[in-house]
């Protein structure tokens, strides 16, 4: 939903929830904070300035705090200017990348990890290993990287068959890394061999 707002031209998205312990839905604000945090990371990874996404907390009795939070956020976004200014990528490149962030956020891998976040951070995994929030985010960062690249590869290959070297050029990633992603996708039967061009194999989306 947050990515959707950026896809549709929002310059900033702020989510404000209740203070921890005050949530009408018991733990909804914990979930919300993690989900917004993830969205922020994915969007940052595809080139957005993280200042455009914010999560904060405020009670319904804290009118002044609300105004302060919104004013500060608004000011921060205004200083950056419209989308594509002050971001790592500029328009139209950023616009092209945003739907990939949306796809990655909607798919199973990130949703599983983010769903299990609180469990891993409080009760631990099946082996009883409890992770700190920091460790969880670090783990998530690599998953975000993989997911975004994977979905970007799939999008490119849906349009035309490509060789790994060409894909790497488009994704601005080292070819060996892209090859790993492509082979992983091939194992999951999401990518097929299409043919051979010169000495390199061409891949297409299955």
């Amino acid at each position, binding site marked *: *939903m947050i990515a*959707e*707002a950026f896809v*549709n*031209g*929002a310059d900033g998205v702020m989510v404000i929830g209740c203070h921890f*312990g005050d949530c*009408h*839905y*018991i*733990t*909804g604000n914990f*979930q919300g904070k993690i*989900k917004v945090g993830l969205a922020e990371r994915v969007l940052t990874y595809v080139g957005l300035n993280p200042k455009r996404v914010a999560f904060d907390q405020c009670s319904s009795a804290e*009118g002044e705090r609300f105004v302060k939070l919104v004013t500060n956020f608004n000011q921060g976004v205004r200083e950056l200017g419209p989308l594509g200014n002050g971001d790592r990528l500029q328009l139209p490149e950023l616009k092209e990348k945003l739907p990939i962030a949306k796809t990655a956020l*909607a*798919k*199973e*891998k990130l*949703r*599983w990890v983010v*769903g*299990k976040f609180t*469990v891993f951070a409080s009760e631990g995994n099946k082996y009883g290993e409890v992770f700190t929030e920091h460790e969880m985010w670090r783990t998530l960062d690599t998953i975000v990287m993989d997911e975004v690249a994977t979905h970007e590869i799939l999008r490119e290959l849906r349009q035309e068959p490509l060789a790994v070297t060409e894909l790497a050029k488009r994704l601005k990633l080292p070819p060996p890394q892209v090859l790993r992603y492509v082979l992983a996708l091939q194992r999951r039967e999401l990518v097929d061999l299409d043919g051979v061009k010169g000495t390199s194999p061409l891949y297409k989306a299955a």
Partner: protein
Amino acid sequence: MAEDIRIGVFVCDCGSNIAGYLDCPDIAEYAKTLSNVVFVKENLYTCSEAGINEIKDAIKEEKLNRVVVASCSPRTHEPLFRESCAEAGLNPYLFEMVNIRDQCSWVHMQERQDGNQKAMDLIRMGVAKAALLQPQEPIQSEMDPKALVIGGGISGMTSALVLANRGYQVFLVEKSKELGGLLRNLHKLAPANVDAQELLAKQAEAVKNHENISLLTSTTIKEIQGYIGHYNVTVSTNGTEDNFGVGVIIIATGAKVFRPEGLYNYDGKGVITQFELEGLFRANKFKAKNVVMIQCVGARDEERKYCSRICCMTAIKNAIAIKEKDPKANVHILYRDIQAYGTENEALFQRSKQLGVRYIKYDQEKPPEVRKDGVKVYHHLLGRELELPQDLVVLSTPLIAGEDNEELSKLLRVTLDENKFFLEAHVKLKPLDFATDGVYLCGNAHYPATIREAVSQALGAASRASIPLAKGMMTVEPIVSILADEDACRGCGLCVALCPYGALEIVKTEKGRKVSVIPVACKGCGVCAATCYQHALSINSYTDQQVEEQIRAFLSGS
């Protein structure tokens, strides 16, 4: 979509509450330009009879099939407008409310132009969502007219009796052998000087003899499954398991008295707790001449930040008892602050002073020092240390949360506060309910309470629990999670793990493992829909499509 969408927008002036700060005629004009809008009306008060009739007439005459009211808070007025739609033959869930008062005219009183713009944005978003609304039917579910009361102290007994007297079958589960809880150790009860044991005997007798109460002592709760109306409870009595169903549950598990091991030379003989002092009174073994009471022992400190609230009155009550028995006895109460709330408590506090009980305020930084035959305390006003003679030191210790609270909170999926006491749904609006429907709370399980407060809460919790029991059938808002796309669901169970209300379960169907929503237990929070990577789950009236359409509508104006 084959259906021709016909939206009616009603812009409310709310007297001068909205029209005084925004240009309602301009806003109404603007609403006319929005797609699918076929009728717009500005009302002085949309909620008045005239306004309501205009909605009803327009539904009939203009063949409206969606209604948007731009006025105040849905908290107060959405039910009214929905009902009006229903009376005119329109499904009430085809109604959408836009708040242009509390969140617009009231907060932008000095910014008329910006306020107008915001109201238009909000209405545009409301209209965009309204076009996608689908009719919903309220969900009905039957109620098992039985209750489980956990805890056989004064709170548990009181609520069990109320429900039993109303004709409902009650299972009263107590983990120890006897009824009574903490009450069993008390002597007299403030402020009316009631004999604790007489009260206990009377209540316990009534509970034991009541035909509608199944009393289960030496019994613990093993498992609770289900939701309001249909709880399945497994208990263990001395190792023998039993199983029964109930519709509602009251938590009355009480609390424990904190034992001040290692504090102020506590030994249970010369230095005792108020709780133990009550025991001396009951056994008629009290004979001290110089009593020093110390308040806030193990309370309001770093470890337990909260005030146990009842210890001041316990100390005052016991001090009076000592002075009444032996006016020559010396009683000193060393305190940090005194909680003598309410007229009766204040009167007792004053009476204790008249009887000669001495109060000395001590500083947390300079706590009193208990010695062999005296207590050393720094006196603020005198600016020096005093040595008080003592042959008995009584420590006022807080009530602390029971050790079973965490386990029970997990079984019932209800929340605890930072001190492990049970946390009510809302401190003012729902003080005896939990966020989970069908579970109620009273007495010390919630927070330290006097007997009188515990009884009031028990009566209240029982009457809250009576509401669904009396209704028999439950009607629930259909704004809940639904499995919109069964084929997409892979039965992975992530949503089940995350649902804070236990409203989802995995069932075996012909198509394999699928999630199933228990609508009565669902609160519509949306965690499941936001988690489902297959996008199989959705929230009625808050679908991804509807919310995304609102976002697009908002952004299309900028």
